[in-house]
């Protein structure tokens, strides 16, 4: 009881008689408020950008339920319920694009991970060598090259009449292949291009993870007679696991969206190649720009975003189930 009264007195004191200390406190509060305001103003330009480009566009997904007409805008267009989705899935192309997106992405993720880990391990083993810098530079080189240029040299390799590969096939007495007309080869061609472009940068991520491992662990393992493979299996791999899981999680979350540049440029938008190279992103582009069917494009877009969001949540949920308390791996 006594204590409560005292607390009440202290709490009431400021209102009753502001002393010097109290004034100091209020100016500090004022400063604190001013500082918060300044911080908010600093953040404002980027916040406005994010609001306009990430949140306003979220409302744009309603186009998927409209018969959208450009001149009437979103507010003036007619609502047609799920018709766009019916229309979308009535065509084989949407289903085909979905299948291509998922299977190709799965292949890229799985093989890309193995190759990146392998390359990282190889560089790690010879890390003290003078050549390491050269390898790293070369492995990063594709990162500087735009898909447009990639499509140029893929064309130089695969051109039917005078591409490098066909000239080689001719020289060993085999028939040349019309690569840009034969869709069956394209999953492998695209995989090669993806590994060429991405494995280097991926391996550098894992290499930096390997370099962060305490070298004493490897020393101790060596003294205990562990082979290289055992060191990898029981030290390197477990230490890299968080990094691998995060990368896989992000990749699996993005399994429904394809790299538009890769799929638009490298197969050069050849209709004959669509059976294996048309993905959701190229499909949406064509519906929007070439067919001018905004509503159907929006429906495909919303379908892609929603499934993608679901996949991120699902992947995160799976990781939460398997992660241990002391080693949180999930994103949220």
């Amino acid at each position, binding site marked *: 009881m006594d204590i409560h009264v005292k607390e009440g007195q202290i709490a009431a004191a400021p209102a009753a008689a502001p002393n010097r200390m109290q004034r100091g406190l209020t100016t500090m509060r004022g400063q604190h408020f001013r500082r918060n305001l300044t911080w908010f103003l600093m953040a404002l330009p980027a916040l406005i950008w994010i609001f306009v480009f990430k949140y306003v566009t979220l409302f744009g997904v309603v186009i998927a339920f409209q018969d959208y007409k450009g001149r009437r805008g979103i507010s003036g267009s007619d609502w047609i319920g799920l018709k766009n989705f019916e229309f979308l899935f009535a065509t084989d192309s949407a289903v085909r694009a979905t299948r291509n997106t998922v299977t190709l992405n799965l292949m890229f993720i799985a093989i890309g991970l193995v190759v990146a880990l392998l390359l990282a391990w190889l560089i790690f*083993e010879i890390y003290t060598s003078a050549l390491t810098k050269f390898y790293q530079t070369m492995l990063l080189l594709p990162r500087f090259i735009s898909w*447009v*240029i990639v499509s140029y040299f893929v064309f130089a390799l695969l051109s039917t009449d005078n591409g490098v590969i066909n*000239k080689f096939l001719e020289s060993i007495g085999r028939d040349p292949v019309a690569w840009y007309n034969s869709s069956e080869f394209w999953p492998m061609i695209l995989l090669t291009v993806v590994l*060429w472009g991405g494995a280097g940068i991926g391996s550098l991520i894992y290499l930096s993870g390997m370099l962060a491992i305490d070298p004493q662990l490897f020393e101790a393992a060596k003294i205990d007679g562990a082979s290289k493979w055992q060191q990898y299996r029981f030290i390197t791999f477990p230490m890299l696991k968080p990094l691998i899981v995060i990368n896989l999680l992000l990749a699996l979350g993005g399994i429904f969206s394809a790299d538009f540049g890769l799929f638009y440029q490298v197969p050069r*938008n050849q209709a004959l190649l669509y059976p294996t190279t048309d993905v959701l992103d190229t499909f949406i582009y064509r519906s929007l720009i070439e067919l001018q069917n905004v509503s159907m494009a929006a429906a495909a877009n919303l379908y892609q975003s929603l499934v993608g969001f679901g996949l991120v949540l699902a992947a995160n949920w799976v990781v939460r189930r398997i992660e241990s308390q002391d080693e949180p791996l999930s994103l949220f």
Partner: protein
Amino acid sequence: MATYSQTLRTARQQDFERLMGILARYSIHIILIVWSLACLLPLLLVVSASLTDEIALTRNGYGLIPSQFSTEAYTFVLQDPTAIVRAYGVTIFNTLVGTVLGVLVMSMLAYPLSQPDFRLRRPLSFFVFFTMLFNGGIVPFYILMTQYLKLRNNILALIIPHLVGVWYVLILRTYFAGLPRELLDAARVDGAGEWRIFFAIVLPLSKPALATIGLFVALGIWNDWILALYFISDANLYPLQYLLQILLANANVIANMRQLSTQAIPLQTMRMAMAVLATGPAAIFFLFFQKYLVRGITLGSFK
């Protein structure tokens, strides 16, 4: 005696292991050299093709060494370099303005988000990072840009979408949070305002992170052609990569020109020469700054 043979055996075993170790090292180097060449050779293929005589290229195909050396393609491209010079101008302008503005705007967001005293830190962090999980996609973006912001055939359409990358904000925020707090607090006690602290302390101390993010943004803008594909139809505003893409995609257009024109156009080699002119200087520039890229990969991979 037993110990002696044992020593001998272990010595032999060690020799064997050492030999295997050397062999393994050599195989690793061979694999990595092959991979490195695989990264480099396709680009050399383009350079070589650009320096090959057009007819020889048609006859002999592409090769790493020009079957018949010729600079005709370059002469032809540089005869009327207006298009490529303009495209260079557009791309350089976009890259410079976009990178400086983008890094500034993102840092200005990342800095408050890195300060524990910021009252709005949690809600704003959520507001910012939620967008990594769900976004409307290209169609609403397209409608917004064309119908509401009216940015079709406007150079801003090639810059503004590049200004903020949420992933980069995350990296910058982590970096800013690692700056010594005592330093910032000391400046505050001395009466420095937050703007002053930001420009005079935070940014100078964060040069490596800013360079890394700047390089990523610059690379993104330099190599971008997708925004031009969607929003630009005015040839005066073509950025470099889009000009190249038009050149490759519209082979028929140029082939038709060839029939009309009295002068034969070295179509294939000309394209390759354009690719070299458009990529060469930038590739060298970016390779020069690659250590920042490596650092960025590391920054991005941990948190």
